[in-house]
């Protein structure tokens, strides 16, 4: 019998972007785990240099086709912070509608097309649809409602064009708002059903102590702002994030890895839910109670359920903002350009997205720094793979290990386009 066993996933399916995985197994233990992300770098930080602040939202949107609005919202908030501009209540309200649309669209895509087939034993959404077309159609409808909210605010779901530094190019008209609001109302029971369905999935047991990190806002579930908090008790302003986060390059990846105060940490829906359940409205809390999930959850497999809960939450949130009568305030404010450093963090669908822009007195970008959610999750994803595969036993056939490794990675909904390519799963085995 060979001492080494090599297991390889040359193209990982059902993730956004391209990745590969490589592991060494020695004496029944997992040695080195290398989650390889080799999406070719697109060098956005460099592209941004010398561009005017007004061009930034449309440039950074192109980092990610799944969460372009999150990039736009973070960029406009960071630049406005540098200019000392407060967007005001109505603009903030419409920005929440934009963010809700993207959470609903992105989460529905992940739950139905990427993650759920793992828990149901299907190869992909097509096979699932042949056995259970109703569940798949419900997912598609929710995805479409998310896209309708994005289109309401920005004309199209991918790379919307409505948001700008200072506010929006225009607010939607009353009739446009009402048409989308009625679609959202009709989707609420679908999302409630989705949460019940998600709660009934057979999640593998897993108890792991991990650090959750998210934004936290004074009086609402976090979305477009707040302080950065952790389950270790950290609470900092986003402008202090750089002092606590350490980004490093590893030889197997074009995405940076991150540690917070020296530790791996989790960002994303489960981390948000773990840290902010007390900010949810009562009807969502009772849904959570019915679902049987206990918060904070230490089972990473619950991230699918967390996405379903956030879909239901975001629909209710978007509807509340759509139904508020317009105050008639302008859709954008005059922009006081000045030499500045502007920093902001938002909750993208996959977790904390942090931007910093150093601007010249003419509003040109001197330097930009972007920390996306997926690179923050890379370190904990590798640790989870090591622990979970060992706990489940390494004597299983290659195919079983490969499937489990892929499922573990998908829990994190890695957006490899954001992180900047992809996963080869290679296991080197020594002395079985």
């Amino acid at each position, binding site marked *: 019998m060979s001492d080494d066993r090599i297991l390889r996933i040359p193209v990982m399916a059902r993730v956004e972007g391209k990745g590969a995985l490589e592991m060494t197994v020695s004496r029944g233990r997992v040695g080195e785990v290398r989650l390889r992300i080799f999406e070719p*770098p697109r*060098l956005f930080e460099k592209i941004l240099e010398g561009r005017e602040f007004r061009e930034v939202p449309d440039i950074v949107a192109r980092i990610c086709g799944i969460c372009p609005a999150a990039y736009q919202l973070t960029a406009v908030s960071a630049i406005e912070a540098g200019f000392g501009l407060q967007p005001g209540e109505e603009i903030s309200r419409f920005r929440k509608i934009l963010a809700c649309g993207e959470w609903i669209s992105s989460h529905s895509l992940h739950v139905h097309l990427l993650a759920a087939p793992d828990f149901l034993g299907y*190869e992909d959404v097509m096979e699932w649809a042949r056995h259970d077309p109703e569940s798949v159609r419900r997912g598609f409808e929710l995805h479409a409602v998310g896209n309708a909210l994005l289109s309401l605010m920005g004309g199209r779901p991918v790379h919307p064009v409505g948001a700008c530094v200072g506010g929006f190019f225009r607010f939607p008209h009353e009739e446009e708002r009402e048409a989308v609001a009625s679609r959202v109302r009709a989707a609420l029971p679908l999302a409630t059903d989705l949460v019940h369905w998600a709660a009934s999935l057979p999640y593998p047991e897993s108890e792991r102590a991990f650090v959750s990190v998210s934004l936290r806002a004074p009086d609402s579930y976090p979305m477009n702002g707040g302080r950065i908090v952790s389950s270790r008790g950290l609470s900092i302003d986003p402008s202090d994030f750089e002092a606590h986060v350490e980004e490093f390059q590893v030889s197997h990846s074009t995405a940076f890895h991150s540690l917070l105060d020296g530790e791996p940490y989790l960002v994303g829906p489960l981390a948000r839910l773990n840290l902010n359940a007390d900010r949810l409205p009562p009807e969502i809390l009772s849904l959570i109670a019915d679902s049987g999930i206990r918060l904070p959850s230490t089972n990473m497999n619950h991230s699918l359920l967390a996405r379903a809960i956030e879909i239901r939450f975001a629909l209710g949130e978007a509807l509340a903002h759509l139904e508020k009568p317009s105050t008639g305030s302008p859709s954008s404010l005059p922009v006081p350009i000045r030499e500045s450093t502007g920093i902001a963090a938002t909750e993208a669908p996959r977790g904390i997205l942090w931007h910093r822009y150093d601007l010249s007195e003419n509003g040109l970008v001197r330097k930009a720094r972007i920390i996306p959610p997926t690179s923050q999750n890379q370190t904990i994803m590798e640790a989870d793979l090591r622990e979970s595969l060992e706990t489940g036993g390494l004597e299983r056939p290659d195919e079983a290990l490969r499937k489990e490794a892929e499922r573990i990675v998908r829990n994190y909904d890695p957006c490899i386009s954001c992180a900047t390519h992809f996963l080869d799963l290679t296991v080197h085995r020594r002395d079985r």
Partner: protein
Amino acid sequence: MIKPTPSRQQSLPPPRKPRIAVLKLASCDGCQLAFLGLGNRLLELAAMVEFVHFAEMGPLGSLTDLDITFIEGSLSTQEDLETVRSVRKESRYLVTIGACATSGGIQALRNLTSGDPLASVYPSPDFIDFLAHSTPVSSEVPVDLELWGCPVTGDQVLGALRTILLGAPPPVEHDKVCLECKRRGISCVTVTKGVPCLGPVTLTGCGALCPSFGRGCYGCFGPSENPETASLARTFSGLGLTPDEVARRFLFINSNAGPFREEGERWQEG
């Protein structure tokens, strides 16, 4: 209506479903959403064709004997060049989807910067397989149909599929965004508000989205036929834009597309 007799139906061999692949190179994944966001139409489509390879949706079959291959993303690594050469040989139709695959995309802005752009983002750039320039698929292999847009729409990819499978010539858009505004009754943002707009030199396909929001077009669907870029650039200058500002209007989403690149570089140097 004439119905085939049952016996004749049975004697035909089962028709082979068209074999489709969707590939991704350097990109944001947004153009693949033109398929993944089709909703119920995606299920109907999947019943009509065989998705042999479409990693984000699931299938990972080998890239051989393909009827239509859709490529998202620009050529950015040595591996990308090898992939498109091999897939070209195996595909009856090769279709690019989006600005990245069709013109090099926004990341082609790096083609214009001097020095090693990689060193400024990554401390140890030696780990990375990376070409200095981001280029369109057509720079390496012949392409049968190019779908412009950042992003492309579901109607564009379905329209391409339908016409290719029917053997009809694929629809090619010639109109400019400018015409689309007139058709939709959107008042001109340049004339009424003095806003610089690429509508007069850009292909439509978006439905004049930006002007409908009161802002200028920024060129997602690439250069139109016979684009009068020089006179538009002079108009921008007349609106008060500095030469560098004029250059940046052209050097944006499709900076590597000939007419936009040439006009942009003229003003950059000027």
